[in-house]
């Protein structure tokens, strides 16, 4: 589809349908029915079968005309893409539209106190009853679970099979008595993740994704989408800047809630974007040692950006290798964040000690220095990314496994 065609088609739709006085949900429902909310999705499911490049044209037009698009923030995308890939037609019909309209917020319920890197070691129980699944256990580090209506959940439905084969993947309603969400404070003072306690929580039989026992394969899809997100950096789906009208007011309110857990996310990436200006303003740029470090950082950020562009061009042209590209990009993001924090420290000198609103860049630099440790842990640690790269990209021999037998016999924390 040519740019002009998209532009004419979309233009006509917007002229006819968009009004700033619509409610946010009503507007997005129109977008969804016309396939403009997620044009890269299949035409059968609320999309238009567009390529990434075509979808980009659409979002550019949205931005130019200050049109509000589909809801973006948070783990919604992880849920949506996973349901698209593995869900039943009914699940797609039931869940995808409300993800796009923003009526439902989602969270990821994967990690547990006893299984983080070893996600397949999950020990939350899923017991099949006549008309539902009964879920018992504890999840942890669940970002924005405190705002979520639904969760994507990995739980163990069989304890006698080897661990990867006993997992199932569920869509769980967070607004039920058996689900308790408790916030966890982080070292940077924010509380964007939570502990989630599941006590006789229920999941309808229909909300199993994939077959029973196929949870690991489904989770792998979610994880690779998540890693790609790290490599790309966060796109907040840049909303139309404050304009007058109901739809904008409701969007502002939605973003305030949706973005709350993520205000510090740019900081965990190290804020390399602030380096050059700060180095100039403080005069640190005159120092030879600082100059060298800035140049090294620049090499990393530029190479990561160029490489990500090449990877996505390669994928568009039908090339393979989504997973390792994600891992390399994610590892790169960690290296960049650490380096940027180091350079910010050099630039600040002793004043790097200070934090709060009266310190450098309104406290943003201090927040950066105490937030970067997250990026090499969240979404799979650096060590795990290295294992993936070594084993799946380089094809190096796997470590001898010690967790191959029936799950109930595997040594784990407290057993």
């Amino acid at each position: 589809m040519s740019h002009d065609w998209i532009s004419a088609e979309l233009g006509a739709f917007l002229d006819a349908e968009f009004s700033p006085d619509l409610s946010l949900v009503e507007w997005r429902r129109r977008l969804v029915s016309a396939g403009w909310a997620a044009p890269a999705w299949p035409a059968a499911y609320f999309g238009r079968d567009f390529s990434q490049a075509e979808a980009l044209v659409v979002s550019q037009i949205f931005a130019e005309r200050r049109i509000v698009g589909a809801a973006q923030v948070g783990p919604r995308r992880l849920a949506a893409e996973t349901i698209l890939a593995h869900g039943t037609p009914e699940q797609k019909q039931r869940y995808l539209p409300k993800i796009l309209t923003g009526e439902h917020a989602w969270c990821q319920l994967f990690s547990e106190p006893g299984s983080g890197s070893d996600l397949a070691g999950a020990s939350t129980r899923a017991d099949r009853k006549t008309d539902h699944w009964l879920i018992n256990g504890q999840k942890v580090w669940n970002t924005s679970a405190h705002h979520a209506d639904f969760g994507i959940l990995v739980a163990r439905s069989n304890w006698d099979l080897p661990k990867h084969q006993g997992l199932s993947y569920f869509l769980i309603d967070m607004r039920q008595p058996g689900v308790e969400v408790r916030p966890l404070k982080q070292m940077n003072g924010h509380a964007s993740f939570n502990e989630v306690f599941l006590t006789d929580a229920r999941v309808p039989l229909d909300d199993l994704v994939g077959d029973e026992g196929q949870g690991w394969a489904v989770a792998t899809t979610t994880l690779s989408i998540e890693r790609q997100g790290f490599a790309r950096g966060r796109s907040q789906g840049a909303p139309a800047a404050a304009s007058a009208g109901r739809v904008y007011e409701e969007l502002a309110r939605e973003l305030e809630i949706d973005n709350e857990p993520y205000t510090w996310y740019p900081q965990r990436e190290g804020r390399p974007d602030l380096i050059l200006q700060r180095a100039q303003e403080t005069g640190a740029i005159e120092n030879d040692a600082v100059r060298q470090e800035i140049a090294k950082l620049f090499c990393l950020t530029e190479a990561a950006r160029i490489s990500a562009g090449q990877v996505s061009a390669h994928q568009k042209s039908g090339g393979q290798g989504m997973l390792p590209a994600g891992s390399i990009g994610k590892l790169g993001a960690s290296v960049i964040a650490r380096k940027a924090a180091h350079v910010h420290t050099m630039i600040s000198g002793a004043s790097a000690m200070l934090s709060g609103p009266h310190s450098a860049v309104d406290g943003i630099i201090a927040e950066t220095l105490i937030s970067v440790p997250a990026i090499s842990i969240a979404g799979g640690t650096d060590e795990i990314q290295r294992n993936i790269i070594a084993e799946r990209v380089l094809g190096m021999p796997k470590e001898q496994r010690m967790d191959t037998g029936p799950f109930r016999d595997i040594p784990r924390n407290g057993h």
Partner: protein
Amino acid sequence: MQAVLSDDQVQFKQVVHRFFDTHSSTTAVRQLAETETGFDPLVWSQLSETLGLPGTHLSEQYGGHGFGPVELGIILEEMGRTLYCGPFFSSAVMAGYALELFADEAAKIQRLPQIADGSIRATLILDDLNQPSQVGRLIEANQVGALTGSAPIVLDGCSADVFIIVAREDSGLGLYALAANAQGVEVLAQESIDMTRKVARVSLHQSAGTRIGTVTQKALNRFWDLVSVALAHEMIGGAARLLDETVEYTKGRYQFGRPIGSFQALKHRCADLLMSLEFAKAATHHAGFCLAASDQETVYPSMAKAMAADCFMDMARAAIQLRGGIGFTWENDTHLWFKRAKCDEVLLGAPHRHRARMIDILQETQHVA
């Protein structure tokens, strides 16, 4: 020159170790971090009166115990290990050394005994904490000793009784004393990344200071070396604690059916960290021995500060990383050391400044091979 601790020094270390184990638990550290002054007066008077710690490195004729940088280092290593919260570094180390090195005889006789016995808590106001050559740019003294200007970061500025101040004069730098509650003094608490060490911004507006000494560049350099090495001891103490606890953690945490410490990636990282720690310790202890042995300027103090800072930061990063998600939480204690490491890294000069200074000294003494 000394190469290892003497028996007496080892014994002293054990006493100090026990004291801070008892009196600076992480529970206590967390409580004090939430307070404004950031220290427990009872523990302060115990460590002053029972152990006499603040006077350790100060001369006997001024009420001190006449030991030196090595014994002081022992104390700071233990303080770093337990993240002791209190005005020891600001009063005994910074103000104490400043008086020893810069003050007139009369001022030493008058002021050092109270610092040595802990009855007065002083802090040193330096308007630059990056490098000695920059000191004196912001605070100025006029002919009659009126002080004007400000220092962005003063350790324990909110709780000190007395300010010792280095200020610019017509020619060179002078040392001044000023009561914390004197007229024209404005003290503003600042938030620090490290909640376990309180800092303030101090502004002076024509405050009437008492001139108590002259600060030569040479003496200022010597001072900088002494306090940097003291701080390096704090850093290696903190780093050693982190390594111990991190290694312990990797033995008990299971993933993939085995302790995470059995993964070679983590073993190698810990082994590298131990090497880095052993080198930083060697450099720091050696710097202490050098300072104790002679007034001669050497590369070792800056080398110690740079290596200890890099080691402590690397260690702190690894301590979080090897714990995974739990390491990033507030509830877990690791971030307390991480934040101390970040602040110690830049206090008295970030590593790149100390490395630059090493090269200057090497060139001057023509030791470049």
